[in-house]
């Protein structure tokens, strides 16, 4: 049981660091920059989770925003529609208190994650059996179907949008902790997967599906697993997004969003966790911080062009399959200074 204590220690330590960092950020950074941070955390999560599907397992899904939407709307529906009904019998769910807010967000997260994961299973099971570009077409269609279904659902506001809980929005600190907590979880998950010999099965499917099958890898199962987990993480990001916005509309989850996430994965390097993480942060922060009208206006054109150019010239992305390891980078820097032997 020593290992269990060790793991719990890591979790507690991470939570403590997140809470302290959160306090520092809220107290010292302007609200505008906090909102940029929020978006960076969310998009980094989306990119790393899509990387599980597209980079590590080698599938090509371009409908990630659909799962993001499922999470956002299910989470929002809990907080705004279902919670008010249960709160009478369970007063602890009253928002406004620290415990109430965190507990409420936690339940929303669980529901949103599970629903997005189940949706992933529903979409992935039939389409992942097929090879090649079918998945791209199916996921593209699925993303649009979800958006249009939401557009026509009056309970969640249809085209007018849906207003999730405002107490949490005003209390910025709460979503921020969860957002970076989620990012840590998705990165740790991917890293642990790749660190184990078991995780090599996912890479085998990417490298050569027929050979993987012949070496005893249940390829359908591996692909569905990656797809469901990637979708579930996107759903979790959606829940948190819904709870730090004053409102969500179906437009926040359109094809452009899917394309942005796909671009992040492709640029960061298919299969590189650190690459997706950095690309997710950089591609969110740069357009925001540059505040350049040209970039704002032509953002989608630039992203789509980048995506096409990279797919044609360097499909493995900037970092390729490699991770960015600080020690190796420093070693290389050190070596530059030395005279050639």
């Amino acid at each position, binding site marked *: 049981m020593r*290992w269990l204590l060790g*793991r719990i220690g890591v979790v507690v330590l991470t939570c403590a660091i997140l809470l302290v960092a959160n306090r520092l950020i809220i107290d010292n950074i302007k609200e505008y920059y906090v909102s940029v941070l929020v978006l960076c955390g969310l998009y980094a999560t989306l990119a790393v989770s899509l990387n599980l599907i597209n980079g590590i397992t080698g599938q090509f899904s371009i409908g990630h925003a659909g799962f993001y939407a499922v999470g956002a709307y299910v989470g929002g529906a809990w907080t705004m529609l279902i919670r008010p009904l249960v709160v009478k019998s369970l007063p602890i769910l009253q928002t406004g208190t620290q415990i109430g807010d965190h507990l409420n967000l936690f339940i929303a997260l669980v529901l949103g994650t599970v629903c997005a994961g189940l949706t992933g299973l529903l979409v992935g099971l039939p389409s992942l059996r097929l090879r090649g570009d079918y998945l791209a077409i199916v996921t593209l269609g699925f993303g649009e179907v979800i958006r249009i279904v939401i557009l026509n659902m009056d309970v969640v506001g249809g085209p007018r949008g849906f207003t999730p809980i405002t107490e949490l929005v005003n209390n910025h600190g709460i979503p921020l902790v969860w957002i970076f907590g989620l990012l840590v979880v998705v990165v740790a*998950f991917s890293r*642990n*997967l790749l*660190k*184990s*010999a*078991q*995780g*090599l*099965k996912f*890479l*085998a499917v990417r*490298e*050569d599906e*027929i*050979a*993987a*099958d*012949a*070496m*005893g*890898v*249940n*390829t359908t199962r591996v692909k569905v*697993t990656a797809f469901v987990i990637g979708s579930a993480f996107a759903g979790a990001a959606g829940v948190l997004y819904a709870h730090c916005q004053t409102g969500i509309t179906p437009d926040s989850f359109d094809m452009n969003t899917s394309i942005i996430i796909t671009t992040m994965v492709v640029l960061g390097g298919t299969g590189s966790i650190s690459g997706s993480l950095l690309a997710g942060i950089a591609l969110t922060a740069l357009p925001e911080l540059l505040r350049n009208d040209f970039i704002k206006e032509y953002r989608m054109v630039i992203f789509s062009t980048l995506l096409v150019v990279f797919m044609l010239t360097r499909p493995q992305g900037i970092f390729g*399959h490699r991770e960015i390891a600080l020690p190796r980078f420093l070693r290389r820097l050190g070596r530059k200074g030395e005279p050639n032997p």
Partner: protein
Amino acid sequence: MSQTGLLSIDSVTMRFGGLAAVSEVSVHVDKGELIGLIGPNGAGKTTLFNLMTGVYTPSEGFVSFDGNSLNGRKPFEIVGSGMARTFQNIRLFKALTALENVKIAANIHRQASLFDVVLRTPRLLKLDAEIDAFSRDLLAQLDLADVADVRASDLPYGLQRRLEIARALATEPQLLLLDEPAAGMNPQEKAQLMGLIRQIRERFSLTILLIEHDMKLVMGICERIYVLEYGKLIAEGKPEEIQKNPKVIAAYLGEETE
């Protein structure tokens, strides 16, 4: 089926549209045998391997292995029951190292749950250590220890062929199917390969079914030979019988043996 029977292919037919790539072929392999499968280009040899390993389901007929029918079973299940293969046109996991290639196959009998993987439980750490030791040992036995950390695509051609054999062995098979393992090798490399095949056969007490174009290699090493032509079995027997068989001579007449 006899006491020692391991593989039995019972009048199997495989049609692609109008073409019968394999038609009414029966093959029987006993435990411990080293059997050759020869025939001109397009005779249906690789297709027969694909039928045995579950890539294709036979249009007619049955394949059974170790007493169990294989019809309708998936490739990953069949390899788990003890039949592993190499590919005619090398199919390594190119971007991964030699060691990682072997580890993937070694996973088959050492599976952990996703829960174990994510939390890195003691069970996972133990399995990972076991897979690592097993894979390194296997690479060493095949003289590949020096290139364990080299990407598969960076290996010279001969070593890639050897790594494919190592990877198949990592699934701990009873029956090993080799699809033209000597293709593209020079005579010296071929001699080395023959030595290797004999050696792994002894060491891992394997039964081997070998597709090969090089007559000298097949005649020198196999105990029994099956000959295919246009999808049909035209001869079966000991090497010296096959060599004298007029049908086989006719099939190979004018045919450039590579």
